[in-house]
């Protein structure tokens, strides 16, 4: 299946629009009437207290959940109800709040697995590991090694990721998402549980990805300092509703945001 042809997007165009999206699980309403957009090549932060519906929002964007109401437009095309793998093939990659790596595989294989959708050689060649299959394997290996160098994880290339410390696992997960060469990268709390140094590294990677490749990034993060530094625009959720939207400075001064975070040390 080929993705439909989209107009070429330039920086600043709306890449993804969320309009009046609501999502419910039985009785629980995780999202209520949320609207915002993500523009090409920006870093868009989604913040909010615990249980505000941030992860649910990402899940809607990449097709893991289908909104009960409202619509999502990606590259100017309204998203039909689709399976998550179709969203991935359409150019959306993500990392997860609780690391979801393939834990028995090595770092290298995890990131290689991220390139599965880019690999084309057929079953027959795979069977004999010859011709296009091995050529492709080497080509993609080269690409993956670039990611590994970029993320500075050469030394754990062959280590099964299950044995890595948490901070490195998060980094491998970012590598795996990057391997998909996504147009839109969704990061769910990429720095949770990290120490200051690790956070600085991760921030650097995020900025570099954004600047070097122009990848659009949607980022959930609790650390306000990080959010203010990294993001171009911020959307704030509380109890499943959007309470503010704007540049970091605007949001920081918004009374409802201050209330929502009152007493919470961030």
């Amino acid at each position, binding site marked *: 299946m080929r993705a439909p042809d989209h107009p070429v997007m330039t920086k600043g165009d709306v890449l993804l629009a969320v309009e009046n999206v609501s999502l419910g699980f039985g009785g629980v309403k995780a999202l209520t009437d949320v609207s915002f957009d993500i523009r090409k090549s920006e870093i868009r932060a989604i913040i909010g207290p615990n249980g505000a519906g941030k992860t649910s929002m990402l899940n809607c964007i*990449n097709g*893991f959940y289908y909104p009960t109401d409202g619509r999502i437009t990606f590259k100017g095309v309204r998203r039909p109800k689709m*399976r*998550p*793998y179709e*969203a*991935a*093939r359409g150019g959306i*990659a*993500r990392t*997860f709040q609780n690391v*979801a*790596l*393939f*834990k*028995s*595989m090595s770092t290298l*294989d995890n990131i*290689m*697995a*991220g390139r*599965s*959708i880019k*690999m084309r*050689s057929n*079953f027959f060649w*795979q*069977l*004999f*590991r010859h011709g296009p*299959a*091995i050529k*492709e*394997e*080497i080509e993609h*290996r*080269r690409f993956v*090694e670039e990611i590994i160098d970029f993320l500075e994880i050469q030394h754990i290339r062959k280590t099964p990721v299950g044995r890595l410390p948490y901070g490195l696992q998060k980094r491998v997960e970012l590598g*795996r*998402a990057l391997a*998909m060469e996504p147009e839109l990268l969704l990061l769910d709390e990429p720095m949770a549980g990290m120490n200051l140094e690790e956070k600085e590294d991760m921030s650097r990677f995020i900025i570099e990805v954004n600047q070097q490749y122009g990848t659009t990034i949607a980022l959930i993060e609790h650390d306000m300092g990080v959010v203010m530094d990294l993001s171009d625009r911020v959307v704030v959720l509380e109890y499943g509703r959007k309470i503010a939207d704007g540049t970091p400075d605007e949001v920081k001064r918004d009374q409802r945001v201050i209330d929502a975070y009152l007493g919470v040390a961030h």
Partner: protein
Amino acid sequence: MLYREAGQFKTNYVADSAIFPLREDRIGIGLIILAAYALAFLGNSFLLQAVMIPFLVFSLASIGLNILTGYTGLLSLGTGAFMGVGAYACYKLMTAFPGVNVIVWIFVSGFFSAGIGALFGLPSLRIKGFYLAVATLAAQFFLQWCFIRIPWLVNYNVSGALDAPLRTLFGVPIMGPNATPQVRYLVVLTIVILLTWLASNLVHGRIGRMWIAIRDMDLAAELMGIRPLQTKLLAFAVSSYYCGVAGALLVFLWYGGAEYDVFNINQSFFILFMVIIGGLGSLIGSFFGAALIFILPIVLGIVLPAVMSPFGITVGSDVIEHLRFMIVGALIIFFLIVEPHGLARLWQIGKQKLLAWPFPY
């Protein structure tokens, strides 16, 4: 000092992506294959017929199940039935088209079990874990019923059993009463080596990574663009292909004939046990597991009566069969507790120790 990683620098990704990057490993594999062929000329008929041929056949079936359960994480209790599909398909094909060489039909029969396997794999999109295991029981019991109730499958022969007709390769009988254990062993060995090589290529490439991704974290795999249904169905099909070929070999090159009952649920379980004990997700483990589970009763049958006879206790074959069940059952629990990665992991640890020898780490 013979087994060393040092000094073998991988200068390019081709070498580093090889399945056996170490020269010693490649030489080792070569030697084992050579020895296996030499055995055909050195071993006696008993060894070949009663030990080696079944060991290879079960190894092949274990590789099949390992692809599904070990690599893709889908538990199946229908292995016996999928083996049966291969055997019955092979029988129909070679009796309907006796002019075509039987080796061709052995390989083709696997496609029939692959198709049936994929069909019964369809529910795997919606159901997981033990629900899926129960669903595969449907395959086991339904297919076994077909083997009994459809006389067409055995060409309406009155005994209802499969028998191996005489078939030759280059004028030498390889199947049927006149085929010597030596020749049959060589045929089985060659087929198993070939199919093992292909399986190894698959699991080390893109497809293998997709299977393992589904096993380790299916939701994340899907969110990375891996199509769950296709990937799982492919695992079912490939796995059943291997089981099907193993089933055909079992009936026609080992037993020389068999009834539907060899494909019963116990067979399914014993193959599963081979996979668990050998190591889930390891091809070499499939051989270890098959060796342990299959050779165990043979060893028991020789050792136990010898040990007990001085005490005036005679050990019948039924006792040995019961002990086999007990020991296998206990081994399963033991391995799941102590080494869930099975004999293959022990093997790997041994090799790593050897690499580092004489230093402990």
